[in-house]
């Protein structure tokens, strides 16, 4: 394995691991605070039980998220020192704000988790709100730094030097809003569907359980709304990259040749040698519309870019299909949930419906990983789009693959333990929470 590939894979593993915890850290505080608010208003036991049970899970995920985030802040330099040396001063600002937001989040979470019996109830609830707000903000700041890699701004580039640095312009680059919106919604979709799925699975065996039924209702409400908003945000993103990063859109759509009008290619296997997609479904003119809002618009294909500046098509295209496919599936489930809640409440406790929701447990997180793959692999070979290649930023130290092997082994081990721990936590839920017992 060459060092560049090892460094990229290590970053991918580290980010892919961390992103799950980051999503949970952005979403769960909101769900917990919501449940606690319902409890404060109604005094119903199940809301308090849920807030407490969730907070135990969050404590575990938050800790692993905090340490894996620390790893990332170092890894940017350990793996891509050439990048950090130049990008550090330009995108330091969102990182400074992210540090602040994360700090507030960690402190507020400490208060929330350990303050159940020592604080005024509303003060305790407010600390949960602070965790939620600062969690979402820290996510937005980090994504803004990533958006800068896709849409560099706030500097002049002369003879290899980055001058006239304007950190504010860099932070509010052209991509920050569309990326931050998409990621925040994605965090809510993924976490909500995962939570709903686990509780739905437990509800199948035990259909009258108030604890699990309430959990599914809360989680799916958040999941449904965000899953229905996500396609709108996706459309904003697609139109944005059609303008700014046509190579990424072309790779995601496997559009080898510039076309006017362009078909939307669904599924299929891209073949780089023959520059065509096999076994795909083509919908005429739809890509032109989706990318530019006009059924007859020209969409730039990969042929406009020299071979060495094209992103890997196969991975980007497949990842994009996975993300969109699962996104559509969850939006559909969300729509059904809203319809059933309004008119056919009985269906919500039917076995087939709960089974569907249970199957969707990992869907959101798979979509998040796929979407992240699209944005990162789709930017290759650039680390700073149009300015610095990933291969010029990588650490000169030989043997980077050993770091990669070790980090991967540790993260796989942690994943296995975490799943096992969560399972144990769930299996004993009836021992701790009155509303989880069924008579």
């Amino acid at each position: 394995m060459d060092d560049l590939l090892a460094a990229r894979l290590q970053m991918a593993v580290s980010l892919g691991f961390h992103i799950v915890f980051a999503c949970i850290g952005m979403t769960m505080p909101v769900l917990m605070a919501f449940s606690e608010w319902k409890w404060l208003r109604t005094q119903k036991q199940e809301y308090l039980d849920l807030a407490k049970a969730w907070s135990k899970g969050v404590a575990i995920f938050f800790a692993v998220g905090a340490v894996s985030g620390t790893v990332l802040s170092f890894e940017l330099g350990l793996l891509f020192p050439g990048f950090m040396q130049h990008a550090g001063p330009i995108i330091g600002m969102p990182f400074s704000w992210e540090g602040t937001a994360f700090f507030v989040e960690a402190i507020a979470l400490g208060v929330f988790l350990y303050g159940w019996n020592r604080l005024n109830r509303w003060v305790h609830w407010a600390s949960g709100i602070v965790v939620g707000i600062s969690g979402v903000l820290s996510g937005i700041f980090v994504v803004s730094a990533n958006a800068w890699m896709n849409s560099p701004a706030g500097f002049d580039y002369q003879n290899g030097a980055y001058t006239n640095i304007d950190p504010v312009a860099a932070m509010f680059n052209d991509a920050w809003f569309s990326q931050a919106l998409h990621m925040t919604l994605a965090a809510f979709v993924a976490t909500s569907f995962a939570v709903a799925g686990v509780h739905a699975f437990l509800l199948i065996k035990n259909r009258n359980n108030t604890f699990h039924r309430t959990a599914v209702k809360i989680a799916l409400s958040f999941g449904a709304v965000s899953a229905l908003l996500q396609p709108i945000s996706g459309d904003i993103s697609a139109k944005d990259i059609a303008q700014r990063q046509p190579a990424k859109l072309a790779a995601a759509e496997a559009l080898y040749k510039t076309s006017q009008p362009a078909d939307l290619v669904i599924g299929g296997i891209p073949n780089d040698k023959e520059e065509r997609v096999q076994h795909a479904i083509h919908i005429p003119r739809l890509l032109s519309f989706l990318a530019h809002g006009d059924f007859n618009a020209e969409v730039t294909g990969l042929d406009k870019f020299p071979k060495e500046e094209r992103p890997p098509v196969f991975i980007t295209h497949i990842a994009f299909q996975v993300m969109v496919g699962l996104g559509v599936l969850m939006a559909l489930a969300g729509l059904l949930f809203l319809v059933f809640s309004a008119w056919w409440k009985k269906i919500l406790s039917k076995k087939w419906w709960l089974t569907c929701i249970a199957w969707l447990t990992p869907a959101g997180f798979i979509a998040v990983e796929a979407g992240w793959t699209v944005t990162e692999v789709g930017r290759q070979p650039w680390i700073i789009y149009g300015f610095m290649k990933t291969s010029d930023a990588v650490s000169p130290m030989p043997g980077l693959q050993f770091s990669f092997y070790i980090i991967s082994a540790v993260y796989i081990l942690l994943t296995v333990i975490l799943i096992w721990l969560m399972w144990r936590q769930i299996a004993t839920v009836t021992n701790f929470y009155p509303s989880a017992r069924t008579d």
Partner: protein
Amino acid sequence: MLLSIIIILGIAFILYAILGGADYGAGIVEIFAGKKGEHTITKAIAPVWEANHVWLILAIVILFAGFPLIFSTISTVLHIPLMIVLLGIVLRGSSFTFRHYDVGQNGSRKYYTLFFRISSFITPVFLGVTLGAMILGEIDLSASGTFYEQYLRPWLNIFCFTMGLFCAALFAYIAAVFMIGEVPSVGERKRYIQLARLFLFATTILGILVFVAAEWHGHPLFREFFASTFSVIALGMVLLLVPVLLRLFRQPNILYLRAVAGLQVLLILLGWYAIQFPILVYEKHGNHLTFYNTQAPAATQLQMLIALFVGLLLIVPAFYYLFKVFKGAQEEQ
């Protein structure tokens, strides 16, 4: 502006050494504190350890945004020790949380404890190794040498590991002093006082050895130390506080005890800053990396200062509140 940033970086590092240090040290102290100690130590650090470690993230962000060349240099040359630090941080945080929240009480607990203790020791050692390598001056920026010369020799030596052990002993000392105030019973308190004495002794010996090892490597740490009046005064005060401490151990007053130990750490770090300033990384051929020759452009510094200032306005009261809420006995989870 630059000076304000340097001061905030310095403060972040001091707070990390004291608060984060107490957390690491707690894992080391736990080895000597018996079964009961495991419980009290977990209770004492569970609500605060994550927040304590954010000081490290803050210091890193200041370093890579404010002094990019320093960050990219140490993360290239000191890749291996830093990677070990990171693995230590991950394993330590995870195993601590797993142990704290795992509902089962069977065999798995043994492994969490094992990992927690080992990584609580290894991580500060390699933090110290990294700092040692920045001081020692074996880093060769013009090198096109072998793997050993470029990536191992700067840190794989006696001086750096003495620094590492010094860090671990210092952290364990801080933790032991901290724990004296966390246990109500006289018997338990006695145990931690004993441990505090032991680690104070170890820290002193290792502190002397750091100087000896530096001389042995040809780095004139003694001379640099005596050239800085401030450092001499600082170390003098650290030593003068030792008899005060020994007396406080006999009649513990929690507040004074913590204040004196904290002051010692503060003085040690300030003394070290005074020797180093403004150099952060000593280079073999004298091309040292300083705050001045690596500073980011003014626009970056200004924005960073704004973010840090607003951040500290939010963080400091919040931190105070967190500690206030959890002063005294912790709630059972």
